[in-house]
């Protein structure tokens, strides 16, 4: 290598060679970056190398795992008992509410049958744990310990007990990467719970744990403290899950829209266990045609007036 001769060679002899090498390497890197940005090749490379990548993730997560275990081992017994009692109380409350909801759901289904509503709220969910690694400062992502071997696929929504967390963007055999809703390149269709106003929430550009709602009509009825829920449009997130709560409202730069900042309701930075949703409930696109009214076509009579009934 050229640099090894530094002691014997004149000081600046191989500088031109070094510069040339730098230019070559940088060009290669830039070509790779552009190709990857356009084509997403890194996902394929990572899929091929998953047998190497996943152990590194596990090793990196090891200290956090040990730390958590140590905290559990070292926790005071009385504190555990207290926590247990607290959880028991909460479970009882939750079950009571659930029981009530069960009857409400029953009623709801009956009403839906009456109204002939097609969609249902049946949800399949899968429990997953966070693998505690930090994939860099730019993209707000988390890593889960389930992957394509557990039949997790790209595009599934991830929630925790308090709200929507994000969407799976990459799967390896035993690991998957979730892009959080606070990622600036992520947008999520939301509705304001109080008024039903539908809009889009994006990750805050400041890099913090916030959401931005950049395009609310000026005339819309939006207040600080309004809760955001998923609207179900777009087909990734099922409708009705809490997303966040509006904290500030101001005008945007053009003055044509109001812009609001919201805080996500899911605890994005400290969720230990999350749910990966299986079913995408609403199909994308307009609803099916309604069945036509009127008597059946074969009764349509004597040929004077022929009514064509379209089959849906």
């Amino acid at each position, binding site marked *: 290598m050229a*640099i090894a001769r*530094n002691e014997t060679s004149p*000081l600046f002899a191989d500088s031109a060679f*070094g510069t040339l090498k730098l230019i070559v390497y*940088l060009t290669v890197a830039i070509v790779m970056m552009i*190709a990857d940005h356009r084509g997403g090749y890194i996902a394929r490379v990572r899929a091929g190398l998953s047998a190497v990548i996943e152990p*590194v993730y596990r090793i*990196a997560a090891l200290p*956090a795992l040990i730390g958590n275990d140590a905290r559990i081992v070292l926790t005071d017994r009385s504190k555990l008992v207290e926590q247990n009692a607290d959880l028991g109380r909460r479970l009882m409350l939750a079950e009571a509410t659930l029981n009530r909801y069960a009857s409400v759901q029953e009623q709801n289904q009956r009403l839906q049958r009456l109204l002939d509503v097609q969609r249902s709220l049946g949800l399949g969910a899968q429990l997953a744990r966070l693998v505690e690694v930090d994939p860099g400062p730019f993209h707000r992502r988390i890593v889960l310990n389930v992957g394509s071997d557990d039949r997790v696929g790209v595009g599934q929504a991830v929630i925790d007990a308090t709200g929507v967390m994000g969407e799976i963007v990459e799967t390896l055999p035993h690991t998957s990467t979730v892009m959080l809703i606070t990622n600036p390149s992520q947008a999520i269709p939301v509705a304001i719970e109080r008024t039903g106003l539908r809009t889009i929430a994006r990750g805050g*550009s400041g890099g913090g744990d916030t959401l931005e709602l950049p395009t609310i009509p000026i005339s819309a009825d939006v207040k600080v403290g309004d809760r955001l829920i998923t609207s179900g449009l777009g087909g990734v997130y099922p409708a009705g899950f809490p997303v966040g709560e509006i904290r500030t409202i101001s005008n945007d730069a053009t003055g044509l829209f109001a812009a609001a900042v919201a805080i996500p309701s899911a605890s994005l930075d400290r969720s230990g266990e999350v749910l990966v949703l299986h079913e995408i409930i609403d199909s994308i696109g307009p609803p099916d045609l309604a069945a036509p009214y009127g008597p059946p076509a074969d009764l349509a009579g004597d040929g004077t007036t022929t009514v064509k009934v379209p089959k849906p």
Partner: protein
Amino acid sequence: MSRAPAHNALFWLSLAICFPLQMMPLPPALLPFKPFWLALVLIYWALEAPERVGLGMMFVFGLIGDVLTGDLLGEQASRLCVLGFIVLRFRPRLRFFPMWQQSLAVLALLLNDRIFLLMIHAFAGDPLPAPSFWLAPIAGALAWPWVFLLFDDLRARLRTHDG
């Protein structure tokens, strides 16, 4: 130049340990202070054993880092190439700086690296990061003397052990 196998082991181990270290989670308050470990260790080896780390080595280790973080293929590779080029170019001076000056030089290198990273992401269309983005180079410069002393000490021990 014949190297003891222990030295080889130290070299590869020190670089291999950087990857899990880089991905290790920290409490959210400390996360912005996480230094670019791979850069620190590669700067050390570029200063002390330049026959081992050329630009090609920097490139390859950067690529490994890219594949592991899954960010943008070639990002760390290009960053480390730029970094390595500067270090190798100014190596005769950097080596004989006193420690605090070396730390300042490392701060400048890491700041330059941050600017380069920002440029890449600006081209990719990402928005500007939070101000805490600029804290990592400071942490890196503060960590530099310890990295340097640790590896110098390890190498000295290996040398006496071999001799």
